Structures are given as structure tokens and as C-alpha cells.
């Protein structure tokens, strides 16, 4: 038992060190490259153009990658946990489709400047919340246990929203079209610092709240009924966790666009590597998602510099490749 706790602490320390390493890497590469020593030097001086590149451009972007990567990964983990299905991910439920639809709407109707820089995230979150409510009313309220029904409803909502987005794209100007496409593919560039802090805060609060349910999630591994026999109010737990996961997804998608695969592969990979105990899985999945997204963003903004690739392209390719390799090497499947 003590051995297990030691291993858990070592895993967390390892991931934290990895995170620090990746953060330094993200700070050092870009249009101007800095060495490790230079970074410390610049950050301690707190002045000059170089400082402003690090503190105002690279650091906020890292913060956002951390928050979004962590949030998407744990919402995937939670959804996979409550539905005991490793193929569920935040996007299967149509939440990202709702956010994308809201944003497309704002772009097409020329509302970009309604709330100045906050417009697209605001419309994104409205779209996401609308989909969460729709999903709740249509299936979750009564059939919260009927996973197939909840999932199918979500998938159908996704199809409908993507068709509506296509309709909007087909009938709009090419300028709007480009804005929609770029938003959809995801970007971690966000000029509004306040918004970044907000997402960062929500992401961390989400992590803490979900962690409070780690014991419940552990018991839910046995199924809804068996968890109830252990004294858990399974019905309420599943609903609360579903809503938290949806909010985390909605917030992430609204600010950073549709960043696929993080919510699917990071939880799967970590479950494969360290087992199914949520008390360690929640923390490591969060850190793993954060590290993965910071790394992916480094690739996205350096591989065809000075241009940037959409982050969703990178996560899809890297994530898919890691996943296929892990799957082919595992004997029992994931």
C-alpha cells in the first residue's frame, strides 16, 4: 500500500518535471530562439522586447495550452468513466458542434465586434451551453443510464450542427468562410489575457471538483448498480460529472476551437500506462493532456514558421499515431 503511494508520488513528480521541461522548451523556441540561461536572465530583468515576447506572447499561450489540454483530457476521462466506455470523448456529445455553430453564426452575421475581442468565445459558449441543455432535455434527464441513447443523441446533434455549419459556409463570403475554417481547426492564440486567466481558473476548479469525485468514479467502474450498493447516489453523481465535463469542454472549445483527440487518447493512454484508479488517473491525465497540448502547439507554430498550422491538425496526427502504436503493442487492448 505504501509502495503504491510512493509510485503515485513518483509518477506525479515525473510528470511535473516533464511539464516544467516542456514549458521551458515552449518558451525557448519560436521566431527568436532563446537558450535556457537566456530565458532565466530575461525573465529576471523584466524589461525589453525579449521580455515582452516571453511574458506577453509565449507565456499566455503556454498557460492556455495547459488549461485547455488538461480540461479536455479530464472531461474525456470523466465521460469514459461514467459511461464505462473508452470510446466516448467530449466531442461525441455534440458540445463542440454547438460551439462551432455559435461561432459561425457570429462570424456570418458580422457580430465579431459585439463584445470586442470576447465575441467569438461568448458565442461559442452560448452554442455549447445550448447543446448541453438540448442533450440534457432530450436524453440525459430521464435516460441518464441509457448510454447508447445519450451517445446516439449526441452524435446526431453533432451531425446536425456540422450540416448547419456547412450550410452557413456554403452560403457565405469567402472571407467569412476562412474565418470559420480557421476557428474550427483550433488555435491557441488568444490576445485577451483576462480570458486566458478565466479559462485557466475554470480548468483548475474543474480538476479539483472532479478529484473530489475520484472515489465515486472508482466505484462506478463496477457499474451503476454496484456503485449504488456501495452507498453512492449514482444517478446524481453521473449527472453532476456529466455537466462538469460538458462545461470544461464547452469553455475549451469556445476559446481554442475544436482541438480533437486530446480528450480521447490522453485518458486512454494513461489508463493503459498506470491502471484504472481515478485517484492517480485524474491528476496524471490532466498533466498529460497539458503537456501534450503544449508540445503539439510548439510543433504547430514552428514546423512551417513563420506560418502556423492549426493545432487540431497536429493533435490529430500525433495523437492518432501514438494511439495506433500503443494499440498495436498492447496485448489486451485498451
Amino acid at each position, binding site marked *: *500500500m505504501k509502495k503504491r*503511494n510512493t509510485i503515485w508520488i513518483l509518477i506525479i513528480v515525473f510528470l511535473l518535471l516533464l511539464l516544467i521541461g516542456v514549458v521551458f522548451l515552449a518558451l525557448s523556441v519560436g521566431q527568436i530562439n532563446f537558450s535556457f540561461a537566456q530565458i532565466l536572465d530575461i525573465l529576471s530583468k523584466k524589461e525589453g522586447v525579449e521580455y515582452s515576447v516571453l511574458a506577453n506572447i509565449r507565456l499566455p499561450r503556454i498557460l492556455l495550452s495547459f488549461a485547455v489540454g488538461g480540461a479536455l483530457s479530464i472531461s474525456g476521462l470523466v465521460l469514459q468513466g461514467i459511461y464505462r466506455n473508452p470510446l466516448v470523448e467530449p466531442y461525441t456529445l455534440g458540445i463542440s458542434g454547438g460551439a462551432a455553430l455559435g461561432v459561425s453564426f457570429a462570424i456570418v452575421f458580422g457580430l465579431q465586434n459585439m463584445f470586442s475581442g470576447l465575441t467569438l468565445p461568448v458565442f461559442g459558449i452560448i452554442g455549447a451551453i445550448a447543446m448541453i441543455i438540448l442533450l440534457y432535455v432530450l436524453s440525459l434527464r430521464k435516460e441518464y443510464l441509457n448510454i447508447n441513447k445519450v451517445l446516439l443523441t449526441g452524435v446526431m446533434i453533432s451531425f446536425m450542427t456540422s450540416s448547419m455549419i456547412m450550410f452557413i459556409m456554403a452560403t457565405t463570403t469567402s472571407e467569412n468562410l476562412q474565418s470559420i475554417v480557421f476557428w474550427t481547426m483550433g488555435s491557441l492564440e488568444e490576445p485577451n489575457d483576462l480570458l486566458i486567466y478565466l479559462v485557466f481558473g475554470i480548468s483548475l476548479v474543474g480538476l479539483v471538483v472532479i478529484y*473530489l469525485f*475520484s*472515489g465515486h468514479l*472508482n*466505484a462506478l*467502474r*463496477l*457499474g451503476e*448498480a*454496484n456503485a*449504488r*450498493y*456501495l*452507498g*453512492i*447516489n449514482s444517478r446524481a453523481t453521473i449527472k453532476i460529472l456529466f455537466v462538469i465535463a460538458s462545461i470544461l469542454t464547452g469553455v475549451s472549445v469556445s476559446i481554442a476551437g475544436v482541438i480533437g483527440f486530446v480528450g480521447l487518447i490522453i485518458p486512454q493512454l494513461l*489508463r493503459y500506462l498506470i*491502471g*484504472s*484508479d481515478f*485517484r492517480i488517473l485524474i491528476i496524471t491525465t490532466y498533466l498529460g493532456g497539458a503537456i501534450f497540448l503544449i508540445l503539439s502547439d510548439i510543433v504547430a507554430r514552428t514546423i512551417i514558421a513563420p506560418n502556423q498550422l492549426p493545432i487540431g491538425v497536429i493533435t490529430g496526427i500525433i495523437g492518432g499515431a501514438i494511439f495506433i502504436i500503443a494499440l498495436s503493442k498492447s496485448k489486451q487492448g485498451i
Partner: protein
Amino acid sequence: MSVQMKIEKIVCGYSGSFLLKEVSFDIEKGLFTGIIGPNGSGKTTLFRGITGDIGLKSGNIYFEGKNLTSFTGKQRARRFAIVTQKIEVANITVEEFVLLGRFPYKKPFQFLETEEDYRLAGKYMKMTGVYKYKDKLFSELSGGEQQLVSIAKALTQEPDILLLDEPTSHLDIAHQVKILNLLQKLNKTFKLTVIMIIHDLNLAGEYCDHIIMLDNGRIHTSGSAKEVLNYKNIEEVYKTPVVTRENPISKKPAIFLISERVLKGKM
């Protein structure tokens, strides 16, 4: 003996048809009770009514004089442990699985197990003979071993009543007897009250002190094995001709089936 649980005129079932029609019985402390009856007679509905899987349309269940509805989930889980037929669960070791039985004793904001939790899990894994598998994955074990692990988890809840839904279905005779011997030992040695739904009439007769025979949502007969398991009752409820004799060693009733051909040839 004192009455530990009182089932009073419960009516429950799925929407539309109410399978259980005002069923009442008492469970005495330390008794090994078997619930038998043909498919569709309401065994599983009764089980689900007691576990809270389905709500009671009317009637009450009292535990030590208190209505079961006044218990919180955790309070309930400290008194009743429930073992289902089968659990599908991936990627969890036997020890982790058994430790989940300590959930009802967790305090708010307590994330890690206490020394006591480990001690109890170890004790009950040894008692059920699965300690040697403690680091194995649950999914790697055979059906019979999984059932033993489930019982170990249930015992780790330190309950007053153990409720089992057909614990021996899908198992070979060796595992059937192993599990029932274990339940009997727990019942006789530790005075644990056992309520078990069981299909096999011979096993019910051999192991249960008290048998409740359900038929069409009502109790047909209840009492000792000798009182319940006679050919008249069985033929009436199961609509199947049988012959009953006394088991030469245990002196409990044993039930024999006869093929239609033999039956016709004889008559």
C-alpha cells in the same frame, strides 16, 4: 432468534405490470434464507425491490425496526452487502476490487485507504481463499473465482446481511459447492444473515435453513426445506412432474426430474 428485517406487503415491479403482489415475510437474524421460484415468479423483482434498484409501489421494508428509506446510501451499504450474478470490469486488481468494499466507511475528503481498510480486505480475501490472486486482474479470473472475490468485497463492507442474486449460476458443481460452503460457514460461524436467490432446488434444500417459494408474484409456501420442497408444491409451482426423496447423508430433500419418454412409458 429476533426479526432483523421485516418485509411488509411490498408491491413493486416494472411500469404497467406489478410483479410482486403484497409480499410479506420476516428475516430472522443469523438465518440462511433461500428464495426460489420459476422464471418470472418475481425472484429478481424482489431482489431489486430490497436493494432499491426499483422503487416500491407500496409497502415497507424495515431493518431492525427502522424503515429502510430513512437510511442514507452509506448507512445502508454498511448494513447490507449485495452480490450480483456477474460484474464486468476491466483493468482492476483483485485487491483494489475488494478495497472498494470500504467505500461506505470513507469520510468526506478521505482519498486514501487506511491501514484498517487494508487489514480487513486482506482478512476477507484470506477467508474466501482469493488472497493468492490479490495482485491479479479481476478480469483474468474464472467465473467462480470472480464470485469469491465479489463475496470478499461484500464481507469487507462488514455487513449485517448478505444478499446474493444467484451466486452459483453459470458455475460448475465444484465452484457451486465451494461458494455455498463458504456462505454456510459465514452464516454459522459469524452469524451473518444470508439471503440468496437460487435456481437450483437441490442446492436450496441442502444449504438453506429457510426457503421462500415464490409463484406469480406471491409467496406460495415458506418454511424449512422439508416443508417447502415436496413434490406437490414443486409440481404446482413449476408445472413439472418431479420425484422427491431424502438425501441419504444429509437427510435433506432431493429432487429428481423425469424425462417425458420415461414418464409416458411408465404410465
